[in-house]
């Protein structure tokens, strides 16, 4: 392969884009895991549901794409809320079982969607101006990837505001630190957990409406995201800042390896490097309170 500066810069920009996709995928998972300690294996299926929600709204109700994104947040957040109330709330003190139960949920969701929509791929249309490229000399970026990057920044800002600038955020952080103590101060921890789970699910819904444009919409599309999203959360250490750093680093690493080798081998290398990294730093990049998990 001939190395040119332009192609390398392109790879770096692509890495930033991959990182933002990882972040958008992992954001909801980070919140759910970081707050309630729930290992939500159905996260990928929440992403898939977001994509199908956008597809349905766009194709059957004629809702414009930019409105589909917040609406799929609402739809998936409601589904998440129902699942939390019916199942997850009984399992908060059994983290390993949340993993298993949510795997069952993911099977049901995937199969349910397959029964309703069929196994054939669906497509979400985007406004035509998003499908062009910005070019500056030899460097070119698709506008849609820039859009995802900006949405990622917007979501992080929104979550940060919610966590650190609102009353709900104070309650949420209190419950995260010590559930019993928070409860004795009159905070309804069950309600906080339920809303957090719904919020995480809703964020996955937004991710889904974006990824549905990037790739085709299939009942199985969530499977690919869940492992990567989990690796981001684990590498980051479960905190918001950790996930941002982790997705940036792994995104760049994947893009550079893909530039040197190829896509599949790059993915293999990144996974192996994460395993080696966790051998030496099992608490992740940003450790929350030195707690060893």
């Amino acid at each position, binding site marked *: 392969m001939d190395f040119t500066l332009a192609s390398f810069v392109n790879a770096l920009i692509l890495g930033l884009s991959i990182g933002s996709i990882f972040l958008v995928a992992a954001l909801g998972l980070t919140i759910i895991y970081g707050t309630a300690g729930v290992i939500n294996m159905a996260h990928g299926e929440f992403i898939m549901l977001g994509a199908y929600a956008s597809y349905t709204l766009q194709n059957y109700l004629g809702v414009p794409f930019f409105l589909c994104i917040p609406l799929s947040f609402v739809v998936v957040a409601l589904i998440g809320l129902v699942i939390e109330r019916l199942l997850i709330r009984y399992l908060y003190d059994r983290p*390993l079982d949340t993993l298993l*139960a949510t795997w069952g949920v993911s099977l*049901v969701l995937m199969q349910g969607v397959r029964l309703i929509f069929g196994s054939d791929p669906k497509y979400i249309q985007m406004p035509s101006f998003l499908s062009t490229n910005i070019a500056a000399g030899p460097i070119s970026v698709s506008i849609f990837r820039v859009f995802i990057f900006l949405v990622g920044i917007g979501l992080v800002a929104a979550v940060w505001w919610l966590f650190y600038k609102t009353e709900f955020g104070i309650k949420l952080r209190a419950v995260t630190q010590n559930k019993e103590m928070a409860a004795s101060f009159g905070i309804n921890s069950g309600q906080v957990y339920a809303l957090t789970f719904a919020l995480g699910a809703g964020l996955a819904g937004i991710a889904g409406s974006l990824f549905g444009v990037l790739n085709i919409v299939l009942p199985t599309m969530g499977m690919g995201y869940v492992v990567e999203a989990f690796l981001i959360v*684990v590498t980051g250490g479960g905190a918001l800042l950790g996930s941002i750093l982790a997705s940036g680093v792994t995104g760049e690493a994947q893009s550079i390896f893909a530039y040197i080798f190829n896509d599949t081998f790059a993915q293999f290398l990144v996974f192996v490097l994460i*395993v080696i990294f966790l*051998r030496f730093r099992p608490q992740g990049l940003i450790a929350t309170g030195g707690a060893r998990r």
Partner: protein
Amino acid sequence: MEKNLYHNRLLQWLVYVVFFAALAVIPLVMDDAFLLNQLATYGVYGMLALSISLCWGFGGILNLGQGIAFGLGAYGMAMTMQMQTQDPEYSPIPPFMLNNGLDALPAIWEPFWNTGFGIALALIVPTVFYLIFGGLMFQARVAGPFFAIMTLAILSALATLFVDLQPYTNGVNGISPPAALDIGGFVIDPYMSTSYWVVFALLVLSTVAAKLLTQSRFGLIVQALHNDSERVRFLGYNVAIYETLVYAASGLIAAIAGCCFAFLTQYVSPAQFDVGFSISMVIWAAIGGRNSLLWAIIGAFLVQGAQSYVGDEFLNSWILILGFSFILIVRFLPGGLGGLAETLLGMVSRKRETQESLTVGAGEPETRGA
């Protein structure tokens, strides 16, 4: 003394004997080659559920990537079988490699010329892989859900690697050896009762070995890990070593299962590394009862048996049912069917016990616990 009949060791072994005797009768009364092959495949699934029960039910290590050992074992066996059909002088290179533009046999394939050596590699490579990976993770005290996620990551990394190494592994198409496995003249034809007997023998062997392992001193410490690994650590045991060893033991069983799978189907592909397949192994063990080796095997038989019974037509709703029943079992019946049996037998034993004590007289309750 343990009062619950479920915990009676002699009775447990008796149940094992009855169970395996029933499995041994099948080929004597049935000679449908296709059905026997299918039943032998269930035996492979049983071995996989057994291996999950050993490391998850007994060691408390949830392993969502058991496909690592299964797939590596299956590939090792398939490579051995492929090389049996090659001739060192006239056709030293498998056809798919020629199609992928290789003009010499890759060095990783060389050891598989020798059948014994190839099978040994098919078992040793996954086990050593588990020892290294498990050692790395457990020494870093990666445990619980995190370990489960890491196994999942390695599994999908391996799947992408095997797809990517197209010239060496034939990519997504996989390897389909043209002839049955031949061990020194003993041909294991997948559509003859011999293959059933081989799988049966290996299932009995691994079950008995795993059962003896759980009853040994080593097994007791492993079970203590399951209950509270911190406490075991404070008692001075090197927790990482025990975890690594039980994880590797379960990997060895899964590798044996992989070898059986390869000679039963004469086919191996990256689908053996499929995440969904590895997780269905966990589902079998969970539905049957992860805390019991035998119930885990029964779980695999029940789930897979029911799946082929409902047929392709209802496969869609079947997965829905499977998902729901898995959720219900996790929520209400963490011990699975085995746990249910334990509770029921416990109730029966207690009833009998109280009746006995009533007839003897209520005046001597302290002798009851002896």
